[in-house]
Every structure is written in structure tokens, then in C-alpha cells.
């Protein structure tokens, strides 16, 4: 029998979408039953009490979690989010209910062996409840007590070869789309870059050295399946520089209706017969495509690699072969001064292991930001404060028209003294010799 009555939550067991309430109840029941005789290291009724406190929130419309305080593992400044319930007497099972962020493997692939080990560990030392995955990408383990943190860390590193993720003013756990493992659009080895950077910057990931959090995300192409441009302080997006490869036979097959456009992504509605003009050529934002008879032509110099045509005709069109990535700086959520999208700072850079060129840039950036960033100032905010050019300078990047969407509309250029002939040191006497007062 359930420990707490949850009439409101029970309503969320209805409907077709997988019910998290049912899932928590399942976990609760399993713990009560304890078919495998696990020696639970935290209260058996942790899931029951979670349901209880959640029902309370559903009743009074307020959260019942308190600030975490500083909990964590020795020597690390992140990876654990402390959390306490503000009704510990009523719900002792969740009196402590800390979150552990476990660094996910790049691309979110698992073997079941590994997954089961994770499950065993977490069932044993925590609530058994997880988020697969957190918004940043971690495996998020929901709810354990302070004494278990070191134990979990020990087993994780010793038995599962796996480390904690980031939190606090650290580098956060990098994430990538699935990239080359299963996607033909990937211009770079997104998973590998993500993994490599994760390993390279372990120290930053675990020890707060920054003014605030910092996120890397890697998208294999401009489709942006890991949303790096919106959700990471430094976003890597794969690109090609040369020509889109065209299979003219396949183009004909699309025109002939033999292949469904966009891989069949729209097949749930009758959108009419495929029309290459209407669906591809006219929708190309740069207008750089046209048909010559049965042949599709692209003026690649004018293409801005938006991916539309390739997405629409995946069997006929392929990304180019001279690949690399763009780097965009400073995306963040709206707190405090409004949201920012990543700003292009490097239009194109080679992206091959060991990524030396990229790391050089990252290190210049880190150094500058650690020096100049204010407390709780995201790097995008620092960039806004010091100006984009300053960032380019610090990173020793070329000034390229591509970094702006449009040039400035105001004439307020901050010339430097050395740029202006004659310098700034002028004498009023000299001026007055030409201009009487």
C-alpha cells in the first residue's frame, strides 16, 4: 500500500504518454518488495516520500525543496546538487535528496551491461530515480543522502570507469549530437570532439576556476540537434566549405515521385505531388539553386549551408568534403539580462584530433575570461560588456565580415590613438592660433 495518498498525482497516471507517476510508483513498489534483497543505503521509502511531498506541492502550489548548501565529494567543486526537503518530519525519506550528475558517454549510447551496473549502484546507494538525461546532458541521479556521495563516487570511478559531471562555476559536462555514428550530415566527428574536450578539460570540469558556469556543445551540422547555438557558451557546429555533392539520378527520382522528400518526414499528411521548385529551389534562402533541364545546379559560392536542400533531398544531396566547424560564443538562458544566442567568432576551423588549434583558442579564451569576467557573469555577458572585437583580439582571431550579421548602424567608433595621424596630444594654443575664441 502506498505510504501517502496521492489523489492529484494519480490523475497523472491517466492518458497515453508514459506517466512519471507510474514510474515513481513502480520504483517505490520495487523498493518495498525488495525482491533482490538489496541493502538499501538510503531510506527504503524515499520514492514514497517523494510522491508525498510532490502531492503536497500539487495541493498547495509551492515547491518544498530548500537550498542545497555545499555538499559534494572531496576535491571536486561540482557534480552534486544539494537538496533538502522543507517538511523533513512528514517526509523523512527525502529529508536529504541530493542530485548526482554523472557524466554521460558522448552521444548518449550505452551497452546494457554498463546501464545495468549504473542501475545497481544507484538503486543501492540512492533513490533509484533518474533523469535520462539532464538538460545539459548528464545522467542525473535524483536523491541520495550526504554520506553516500563519496561512496557513489568511489564505486563510479573504480568500478564503472566513469566520472561525475559539472555543476557550479565550472566547465559543465559537454554534450554532442550523435554525429558520425549515425548521421550522414555530420561534417565533423562531433562525439569525438566532445569526448576529447571533456577529457582535456577535466580539471575545469571538477574545480571551479571560472567566474560562472561554462558549457561546450557540439553539433555535427547546422541542423543543430544538440542545440549548441542556444545552449552552450562555446558552440561547435560542423560545416563544409566546398560544394554540395549532387547525385542527379536521385534528383530525378525525387522529381519522379519515387523517393519521398525529406526522408518521408511529412508523410502523415497529403501535401500534394513533390515539386522541386516549390519545396527546394524557391525555399533556398540564398536563391542559389536552379534547374537546367533535368539537372539541378547549385552556385555553391552563394550557398550559406543552411541544410534545407540537403534535408529535403537526402538521397540526392550530400554535404561537401572540405569540412570543419564554426565556433560560436556566449549562448545562455535569459537570466539576468536577456537570453543570448551564440555569436560567431570563428567562421571555419579544421576539426581533427587532437584539435590543437581549437584548444589553443579555448585556452586563450579561458585565460581572458578568468581574468576579466565578473563573478556570476557568463562569458556571453562578458563579451557583451567588452565587445566582440575584444574577444577576437584576445583569441588572436582575424577580423572577418562574417562575424557580423550587419555592420554597425551608429558612427561611434572607438579609434585608438595610434590609428589616428598626429596622435591625440594637441595644444590649445596651437588650436587657438587658428581659431579665436
Amino acid at each position, binding site marked *: 500500500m502506498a505510504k501517502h495518498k496521492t489523489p492529484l498525482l494519480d490523475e*497523472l497516471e*491517466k*492518458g*497515453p504518454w*508514459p*506517466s*512519471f*507517476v*507510474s*514510474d515513481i510508483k513502480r*520504483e517505490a513498489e520495487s523498493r518495498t518488495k525488495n525482491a533482490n534483497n538489496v*541493502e538499501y543505503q538510503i531510506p527504503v521509502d524515499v520514492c514514497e516520500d517523494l510522491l508525498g511531498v510532490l502531492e503536497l506541492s500539487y495541493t498547495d*502550489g509551492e*515547491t*518544498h*525543496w530548500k*537550498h*542545497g548548501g555545499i555538499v559534494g565529494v572531496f*576535491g571536486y567543486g561540482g557534480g552534486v546538487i544539494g*537538496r533538502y526537503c522543507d517538511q523533513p518530519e512528514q517526509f523523512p525519506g527525502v529529508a536529504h535528496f541530493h542530485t548526482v550528475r554523472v*557524466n554521460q558517454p558522448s552521444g548518449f*549510447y*550505452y*551497452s*546494457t551491461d554498463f*546501464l*545495468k551496473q549504473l*542501475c545497481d549502484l544507484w538503486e*543501492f546507494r540512492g533513490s533509484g*530515480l*533518474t533523469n*535520462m538525461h539532464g*538538460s545539459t546532458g548528464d545522467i542525473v541521479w*535524483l536523491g541520495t543522502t550526504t554520506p553516500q556521495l*563519496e*561512496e557513489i563516487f568511489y*564505486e563510479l*570511478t573504480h568500478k564503472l570507469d*566513469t566520472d561525475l559531471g559539472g555543476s557550479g562555476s565550472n566547465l559543465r559536462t559537454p554534450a554532442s549530437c550523435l554525429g558520425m555514428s*549515425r*548521421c550522414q550530415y555530420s561534417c565533423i566527428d562531433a562525439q569525438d570532439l566532445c*569526448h576529447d574536450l571533456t577529457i582535456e578539460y577535466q580539471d575545469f570540469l571538477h574545480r571551479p576556476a571560472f567566474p560562472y558556469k561554462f558549457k561546450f556543445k557540439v553539433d555535427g551540422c547546422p541542423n*543543430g540537434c544538440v542545440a549548441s547555438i542556444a545552449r552552450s557558451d562555446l558552440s561547435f*557546429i560542423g560545416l563544409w566549405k566546398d560544394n554540395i555533392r549532387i547525385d542527379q539520378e536521385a534528383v530525378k527520382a525525387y522529381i519522379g515521385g519515387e523517393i*519521398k522528400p*525529406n*526522408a518521408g518526414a*511529412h508523410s*502523415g*499528411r497529403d501535401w500534394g505531388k513533390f515539386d522541386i521548385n516549390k*519545396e527546394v529551389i524557391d525555399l533556398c534562402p540564398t536563391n542559389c539553386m536552379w534547374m537546367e533541364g533535368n539537372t539541378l545546379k547549385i552556385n555553391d559560392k552563394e550557398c550559406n549551408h543552411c*541544410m*534545407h536542400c540537403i534535408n529535403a533531398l*537526402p*538521397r540526392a544531396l550530400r554535404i561537401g568534403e572540405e569540412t570543419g566547424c564554426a565556433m560560436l560564443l556566449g549562448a545562455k*538562458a535569459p*537570466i*539576468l539580462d536577456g*537570453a543570448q*544566442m551564440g555569436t560567431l567568432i570563428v567562421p571555419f576551423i579544421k576539426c581533427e584530433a587532437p584539435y590543437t588549434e581549437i584548444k589553443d583558442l579555448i585556452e586563450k579564451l579561458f585565460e581572458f575570461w578568468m581574468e576579466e569576467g565578473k563573478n556570476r557573469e557568463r562569458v556571453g555577458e562578458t563579451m557583451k560588456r567588452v565587445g566582440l572585437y575584444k574577444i577576437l583580439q584576445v583569441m588572436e582571431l582575424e577580423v572577418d565580415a562574417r562575424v557580423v550579421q550587419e555592420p554597425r548602424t551608429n558612427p561611434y567608433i572607438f579609434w585608438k590613438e595610434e590609428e589616428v595621424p598626429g596622435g591625440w596630444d594637441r595644444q590649445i594654443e596651437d588650436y587657438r592660433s587658428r581659431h579665436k575664441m
Partner: protein
Amino acid sequence: MAFISSGYDPKQPMKNRITDIGPKHFKDFLPPVLKNNYGKWLYHEILEPGILMHKAESGDEVYTIRVGSPRLMGVQTIREICEIADKHCGGHVRWTTRHNVEFMVDNKDKVGPLKEDLLSRKHDAGSYKFPIGGTGAGVTNIIHTQGWVHCHTAASDASGTVKAVMDDLFEEFTSMRLPAPLRLSMACCVNMCGAVHCSDIGFVGYHRKPPIVDHFTLDNICEVPLAVAACPTAAIRPTKVDLPDGTKVNSVAIKNERCMFCGNCYTMCPALPLSDGKGGDGLIIMVGGKVSNRRSNPKFSKVVVDFVPNEPPRWPTLVKKVHQIVEAYSSGARKYERLGEWAERIGWERFFEVCDLEFTWHLIDDFRDPAYETWRQTTNFKF
């Protein structure tokens, strides 16, 4: 329950300590067909909603079945996923960047049995455990956050609102009849961990009452200057307060009319709670953001519903408004057109009309200088 040590010795924390090893290498986890064809994929097809086929240069094929997930899942469910993956997929499985689960098989024949197996599994109370869908021009899983399940700043619940909305949009998850992909996100406060700021449709928990000052606690556990500095609108100033018991404490005063309910002060100082279950807290709805660079640049979402009350357990008003927007988009947009592209094409003034939403003054940006750029500087509008 006895405490069982992992081997960790609190007296010698550095003994045998392993640190900074990062995650396991992802190649250890790839199914063989992916490993063999790594970087050699040619194209893909969506065979039916939720089922993808990727073709490699070698001629190999991989079939992926994508299933929905509540994200919040216990290890029992993960074990069940493992069981399925062991049975059908050679012991491999993955999650997507939107919390869905993907089962992959290397042969078309394996698709049918896997599909059948997945759909046969339901929770006792009736919901699917593994609904198939989330591909192509449809709705996929909603990115979301902790809500009342775990976060101290949540102004609404995450899992519950998502469940209610996904139940309503279930048919859009299992079909591909929208003009383009429609990506929803949820965040339980304006910190927006769910990255609602660039979603086709997002809903965000938020507060509407300035913090209550817990003077006694503040003096005990917070730094006044930090609390003052936390406020982006300078609504907080230091003050001294006489408590009922006669003691004088250092605390802060809030200039209520300057407060924009962002909660940053509460993040910095727990003695400044904002939560209000009596009509203050609720959600806003934002729409028209996107992340992909396809055709048009990534865009921020715009606030189109200034307030939806918290109505647990099933948030009917929220569900209804989201539904209205999806319906209007579905019938109004052109093929390939994302929601924000559609709204811009028809004009936001028309958007409110066709979605039957009210435009209120709250939707006029008045935050900082760039607000100006969102006002209209042209006569090009529609009557």
C-alpha cells in the same frame, strides 16, 4: 540497513582515489553496425512515425525505433529498457538529446517484433511505457526540468505539465502531419534550464510576487551585499529591521514595484522566497523560437500568453492554449515552415487572431534598451 562501504576511507580520502577520468569512451557503446559504418552514412528514411532507417556506404542498414520517455525514470524502467535491448538489439541502446530512447537493429526483419514488443508494454494504470514516435514533422518529447520534484526555485511543476501536454498532443507525437518539426520545451522558472528561449513552443513557470523577506534568517545566513547585488533592477536595498522580539538585524527591503520576479535574489539568498501558491505563481507560454539554421536563422521564443494559472494536476488552461497554438500552426503554416517562421510570415498581429489569444500590454517588451527593436517601426502591418 547497515552502512556498506565502497572501499572509500573518509580518513584517507586520497587513498586509491581516482579522479578526472571523465566518461567512458563512447565507442565502447556503439552497436556494431554503427561502429562499422562510423562516418560512412549515406542517407536515411523515416519509414513510419518513430522508425528511421539509415543506409551506409557499405550497404549496411540500421533501423532505429524511437520511443517517448517521461525522462524521470526509475532503475526498474531502465532495466526493462535493457531487457528489450538485450532481446532485440544486441545489448545496445541510446537516448536522444530530447530524452527519447532509441532502439536500433541492423536488419529490417527485426523491426516488427521490436515494435510489437515496445507497444505491448504499458504501466498498470494504462499509459504506454514506450510509445513510438517523435520523428519528422511532428511533436517530439518535451525538453524539461525538475519542477516540484526537485528544485527549490520552481514556480510550477515540470513533469506534470509535460505529461498533461503530451497526453493532449499524443497524436502529434505518433504521426508526422505537421508542417515541420514542432519542438516544445518546459522550464519551471525563468532560469530556463529547459532552454525554452529557443523553442517552437515553450512554457515557463514563473512568479508574480516580490520576495518575502525573512529578516531573521537573512541576518543569519545571507550576506546583505550579495543579496543587494543579485537584483538586476536594483529593487533591493540594505536596511535595519527590528524583529518582534526586539532584536535589531541587518536585512534588506524590497522596492516591490521595481521587482520583475526573476528570483535571482532567492538563488543567492534563501531568506527571500518568492513562491506563492495562492494565485501568484503560474506559467507563461512562449513560441516561435528555433535552433536549427535551416532556411532562417535561429530565433528566440516570444511570450504570447502572459499568464496561465497553476492548475494541478492537469493544467487544463495550459493544455488548451498550447493546443490552440498547435492547431492554428498546423492549419496555417506551409510545408517546411517552422512555427516562428509562420508567425513572422503572417505577422504577429495575425498570429494572435488565428490562435485566439489575447494581446496584452504585458507582451510589449519593456526590459532594457533592446526592447525598442521589438516595437514596430513601419506601417507594414495588417488590419
